[in-house]
């Protein structure tokens, strides 16, 4: 309610009256909100519990290397526990990045955790960007959900997402305005919203 008077007139009142009717809302939209909230809670819980068994994928090499890495992760869920503890061949990384120094992709999940949410680390080179975030089917294509962190020395942006094993489509949003798929992973033929996306395969579906 108005606690102080504004200078209003008939025109402003007519404008306000035209803007006040509430839009109709399909019940499914409200249900989707609750689904998104539940997914967010699950992600938060998954992130909190997944540290010791996090799967780490640094996607910054060539397309071919990324395909190998994706395939390795996909097959990783089928490995024996002993095999799954070993590091997979590293994806080629841009030199100078902390991730490159850290050794690239590393698989630390166990076969027994094949259905549990897994943490995946993504890397994207955008030295001129001020903000980069990951969007994908796992976060409702929400550019505010998974912000990445910039490594000032290399210009690489990195961030982790927590996803269930299976196939995911993702992209990057640069400076809240530019949509870009990851050039180093396979392009998704069925990208959401008609925008380009890349494919991420994680573990055993």
């Amino acid at each position, binding site marked *: 309610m108005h606690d102080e008077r504004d200078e209003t007139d008939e025109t402003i009142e007519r404008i306000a009256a035209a803007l006040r*009717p509430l839009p109709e809302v399909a019940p499914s939209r409200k249900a989707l*909100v609750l689904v998104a909230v539940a997914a967010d809670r699950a992600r938060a819980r998954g992130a909190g519990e997944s540290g010791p068994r996090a799967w780490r994928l640094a996607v910054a090499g060539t397309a071919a290397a990324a395909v190998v890495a994706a395939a390795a992760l996909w097959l990783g869920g089928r490995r024996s526990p002993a095999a799954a503890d070993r590091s997979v061949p590293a994806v080629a990384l841009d030199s100078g990045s902390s991730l490159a120094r850290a050794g690239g992709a590393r698989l630390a999940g166990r076969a027994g955790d094949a259905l549990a949410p897994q943490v995946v680390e993504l890397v994207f080179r955008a030295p001129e960007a001020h903000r980069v975030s990951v969007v994908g089917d796992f976060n409702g294509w929400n550019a505010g959900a998974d912000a990445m962190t910039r490594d000032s020395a290399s210009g690489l942006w990195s961030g982790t997402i927590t996803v269930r094993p299976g196939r995911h489509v993702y992209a990057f949003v640069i400076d809240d305005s530019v949509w870009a798929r990851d050039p180093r992973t396979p392009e998704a033929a069925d990208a959401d919203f008609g925008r380009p996306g890349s494919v991420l395969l994680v573990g055993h579906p």
Partner: protein
Amino acid sequence: MSSTGPLRLVKPDREPTPDDAPAAAERTQLVRAAQRGDVPAFAALVDAYYARCLRFALHMLGSRADAEDAVQDTFVRVHRALPSYVEREAFEPWLFRILANRCRTAGLRERRRAAVLEFGEVPEHASDPRPDEAVAWREEIARALATLPAEQREAFLMRHVEDLSYEDMATATGAGISALKMRVKRACESLRRRLQEGDDARRA
């Protein structure tokens, strides 16, 4: 949840009133329950506020899809932030602060407002004897609204459509009351001028 009683839900076929939102005591109960992790209580808050949030987001962003994304993201963030919500802060301005932030982010991301405007979802007044003129009027208003700087559009909507007090607007936007009054004043002046220009153009 059973102790909270039935919610008064906003009806889409009429203009909202301050009574459309849950009454203060009822809202307090819902928020407290939601803070404790009561999912039905949170669902009741979504039920009660979704339409209002969507109206604001639609007018801010001009796109139904963007507005629904912003509203969904708003409620996800509300749920995430509920544990840190303190009751000395009114719930609605707190909710609108998150919503306005999401709209600002979405507006920066899309930058297509001037080109894409959707009006089909705005319900018409059943009693309006000239529906075509009413639709044209709303479209003209939406175009005029779209030309306002985002801060002025936000302030105008909060004040004249959402009926927030300047104090609540200050909570929701982080801006001072004097600055908000100036934004509203300038928004009104711009809207009047643009709609007058439209009238003049039609008469010419």
